[in-house]
């Protein structure tokens, strides 16, 4: 059977395109950092006084940027601002973008994407072959910071609380700009945005009912860090999955073994 030259090229092109579709998955894994297994002290411990064990996993080096989220929207138009169902996002979704496929401006491409609901963040991470980090995974990675002294650690936490009280949302910064890195090189877990996690409202949230006593309950080791941590927990627990704010973005996590299903 003789095939024409054109058909040969078409087939190659199709093959190339199909391979290219695989690329977002490969790209994501390149920028994810391996976080080894370990434990951390949570303000909501499963067992009081005991640290949480966390298995090894991979975490995005930086928060998801506007540039990256734009790619997601191009391939998944049902998540664009004008098509997204009210089931998945409120009217504030990407309200700061110029339109469906136009972030604020050129300079914003390397900034973390914000005003995205939990559903959008969850879908993006699924599209990348990963998922949102669990609350424990995120807090474990955040707590894996190296300080020269207790004094330095306290000062850091104290500044963090100041940041939680008045981040200047008019000052917009690129990912990587805070200069804050955890022990493994994960950037900007503080100082840039708050981040969605998979289970932002853990089962215990219903019992706590977010009252004045909540902060006291969370002061496990009475440290400044616990206090800052508790503000983060409380703020996250108050969100709804359709919420979005100008200070809320996300990054993705990946199992060490693929989470793809065999069909």
């Amino acid at each position, binding site marked *: 059977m003789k095939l024409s030259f054109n058909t040969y090229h078409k087939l190659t092109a199709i093959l190339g395109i199909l391979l290219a579709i695989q690329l977002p998955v490969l790209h994501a894994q390149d920028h994810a950092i391996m976080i080894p297994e370990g434990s951390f002290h949570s303000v909501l411990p499963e067992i009081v006084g005991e640290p949480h064990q966390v298995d090894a996993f991979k975490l995005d080096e930086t928060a998801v940027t506007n540039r990256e989220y734009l790619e997601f929207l191009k391939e998944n138009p049902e998540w664009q601002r004008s098509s997204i169902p009210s089931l998945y996002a409120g009217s*504030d979704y990407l309200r700061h973008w110029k339109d469906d496929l136009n972030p604020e401006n050129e300079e914003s491409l390397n900034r973390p994407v914000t005003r995205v609901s939990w559903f959008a963040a969850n879908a993006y991470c699924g599209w990348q072959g990963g998922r949102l980090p669990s609350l424990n995974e995120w807090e474990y990675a955040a707590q894996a910071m190296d300080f020269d002294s207790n004094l330095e650690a306290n000062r850091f936490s104290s500044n963090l609380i100041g940041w939680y*009280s008045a981040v200047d949302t008019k000052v917009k910064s690129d990912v990587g700009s805070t200069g804050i890195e955890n022990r493994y090189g994960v950037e900007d877990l503080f100082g840039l945005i708050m981040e969605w996690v998979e289970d932002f409202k853990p089962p215990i949230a219903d019992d706590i009912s*977010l009252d004045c006593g*909540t*902060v006291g309950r969370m002061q496990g080791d009475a440290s400044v860090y616990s206090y800052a941590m508790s503000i983060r927990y409380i703020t996250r627990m*108050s969100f709804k999955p359709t919420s979005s*704010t100008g*200070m809320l973005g996300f990054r993705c996590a990946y199992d060490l073994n693929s989470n793809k299903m065999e069909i």
Partner: protein
Amino acid sequence: MNLQAQTQEYKIDGMTFGMPEAEVYTEDYDGPPVVGEYVTMLPNLKPLDYEGNKHHEIRLDTFTQEIEVADGVRFRAWTFGGMVPGPVIHVKEGDKITFTMKNRSDEMVTITKPGLDASDYLDQITENNYMDAKPSIMPMPHSMDFHSGTVAKDDKWRTIAPGETIKFDWVANYAGTYIYHCGTPSVLMHTAMGQHGVVVVSPKDGYETDDRVDEEYVVVQSEYYLKKGAGDLYQYDFEGAQTNQPSHVVFNGHQTILHDQPLTANAGERVRIHFSNNGPSGTSSFHVIGAIFDRVWLEGHPFNEMRGMQTVLLGASSSATIDFIVPEEGKYTLIDHEFSDAEKGATGTLKAGPKQ
């Protein structure tokens, strides 16, 4: 929310309890952030000009504002209605209030738009923006706790995310001057950041001296815990708050406002002050230099009458309604006689003219 069907209204001793469950919803409201017929800016109190009881519809949205609290000291406060303390709400004992609040902490809200015509408060600020309030954004969860309301706190005082709105009813069952504040943890932080104010619930049968009162004002004491930030603005001083070391202790939210804009009266007049110590943590030994309090109703309840007090000791979230006679023309200083507070700003002036 697993509420039993106990939301049927019922009465005890003539007081009404059993309000319906609060509604939480999302709405694109971008109208006036403060709505209410008897809602004013400190130190003003709008007289109640109606017989019997009234059903009030009141809105106080919560949002961030950059404000001045002392000369050269500005910070991005969390507010109800745009100022610290928030607007004064005046109701009568027995009134029902339907209250709405949108969490607009992720929106730029301007409070100095002329002609908003929704409350005296907004008109008064537009004319007299003494905190030089400017819109700002800091998305946070918030809630409302009216001490003047008697309801289940996990229902009505519940926390809402930015963009959400809460709506609920409460009845002013008891007379007095009551703090309202944000109940979202850390309450110390939310209150210190500015989310507090007062409701004045006037007794249905009044106070004994009502027909002799010439001037009536509301004064609120509170603390700030601020330290210099990276730029021009100040920011929350966590350590100061934890160790009870305020940077400023003020009347009506600003270190010098009651000196720059003194209260006024004339010699021989009876002045009434509804005074509240909103804290969040301090106490106040309130005194007026040159005067003695003729009547003091603790917490503002007519039953709790004291006479001839020089100083009233008020804990955090305590209040008193105070009558005193202005003896002579001249100046009188309102002061928290705990001098470490006074020297941080807890003073004000009443300027008295000649006897009329």
